């Protein structure tokens, strides 16, 4: 927990007023963001993209398990699924990350910071994706399942051929939305020392004393990553509809 705040920049405070606009100009033009800064930001963006992609994919797998638990016939299993979803959706991700960071070494698991960050993001998005999937399964029209039964499909085939494909198609937009949220939320791993996009921007801001440019550039890169994600989701959605 000591690591929280380790990455704080000194707050610049009010600029000296007597020097007025000239001082502003001098500070602002002291060290422009150069090609090196942009290369560093791109590296950070790659780390952010990799962390988010892996955690959303792993989170989908765990989310599917949690969703299965929530739809289980056994009461205790259902309750366990509900508690998981409630906890990981109810506690701020920053607090979850702090908890995992301090808990893992506490129980003798020493993993690199990146792995701990990945575990935190994955467990959190799994809860949201479980809830999304549950909604998708509940939204599959019962008539289609009954039609499957009438033509003699086994329960396994009904699951594989009717319920899962339909639920996936129904939930795709929400999953893309969740991926955007995780992409943004992954900025919190900067607090525990991962050199992601946000942390890189912080480093550049403190070394060049140009926070506006550094953070605006980081924000623009987040928007680009989002656009890629949403565009990819749209393509996938069209392909899924075309496959029918």
């Amino acid at each position, binding site marked *: 927990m000591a690591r*929280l705040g380790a990455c704080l920049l000194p707050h610049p405070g009010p*600029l000296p007023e007597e020097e007025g606009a000239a001082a502003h100009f001098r500070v602002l033009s002291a060290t422009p963001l150069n090609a090196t800064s942009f290369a560093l930001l791109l590296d950070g963006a790659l780390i952010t993209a990799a962390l988010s992609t892996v955690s959303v994919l792993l989170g989908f797998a765990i989310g599917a398990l949690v969703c299965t638990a929530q739809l289980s016939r056994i009461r205790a299993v259902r309750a366990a699924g509900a508690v998981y979803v409630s906890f990981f959706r109810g*506690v701020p991700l920053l607090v979850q990350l702090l908890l995992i960071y301090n808990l893992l070494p506490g129980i003798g698991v020493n993993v690199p910071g990146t792995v701990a960050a990945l575990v935190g993001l994955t467990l959190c998005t799994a809860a949201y994706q479980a809830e999304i999937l549950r909604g998708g399964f509940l939204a599959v029209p019962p008539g289609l399942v009954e039609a499957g039964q009438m033509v003699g499909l086994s329960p396994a085939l009904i699951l594989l051929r009717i319920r899962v494909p339909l639920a996936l198609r129904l939930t795709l937009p929400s999953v893309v939305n969740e991926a955007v949220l995780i992409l943004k939320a992954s900025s919190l791993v900067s607090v525990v020392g991962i050199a992601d996009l946000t942390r890189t921007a912080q480093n550049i801001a403190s070394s060049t004393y140009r926070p506006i440019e550094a953070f*605006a550039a980081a924000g623009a890169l987040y928007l680009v990553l989002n656009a890629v994600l949403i565009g990819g989701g749209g393509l996938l959605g069209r392909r899924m509809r075309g496959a029918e």
Partner: protein
Amino acid sequence: MNSALLLDSLPAVAAGFGVTMLMWLPGLSLAALLGLTLALGRQYGGRAMDAVLALLLGAVRGTPFLVQLFLLYYGGPFIGLTLDPAEAGLLGLAIYGGAYFAEIMRGGFLAVPRGHVEAAVMAGLSPAQTLRRILLPEMALLILPAGVNMAVVLMKETAVLSIITVPELTMVITGIGSSTFAFTEAAFLLAVTYWVLTEATGAAGRAMERRIATVRLA
């Protein structure tokens, strides 16, 4: 964390809790107010304003809250906007939440049945009266579930304010963890506190939804 330690730090925890509430509730109100203004601006401000606002709001919703906070807190002084951590936090929550509320409320306005608005016009209500008597109350009912969800989202975002040193719950409790070396216990206490808060908010929202379920809109 043993009980004596907990008792010693109780005043500090209570103060942190107070700051969290002082960030959350005013932040939520400001966000809703800003969202309403922006939604009205998009609806009644003409095409150009709609396009500009859509672009700006998309940028706010597409970037991390933490980056926005850094931009405000560390970048602000360079454009003559020197904010202390609490001010930056409150403004940040208002802007971030406002961008989401704008979208929620715009959807709410569009979902108000046209017939109600036409009936108001036919009954001779002025546009301002129609807005105040018909559109606003019906929109408020329609967006209640989404609004409660935003309340929970913003409650959780207040934890992020600890990074720009707002002395709220997360900062206070992690501080206690650092000074007593009871990191894990502190993080647990923190997690459970937020869990209770967000669950209570959700439960209050569901109770409100049940109460207004008797109001028929369509």
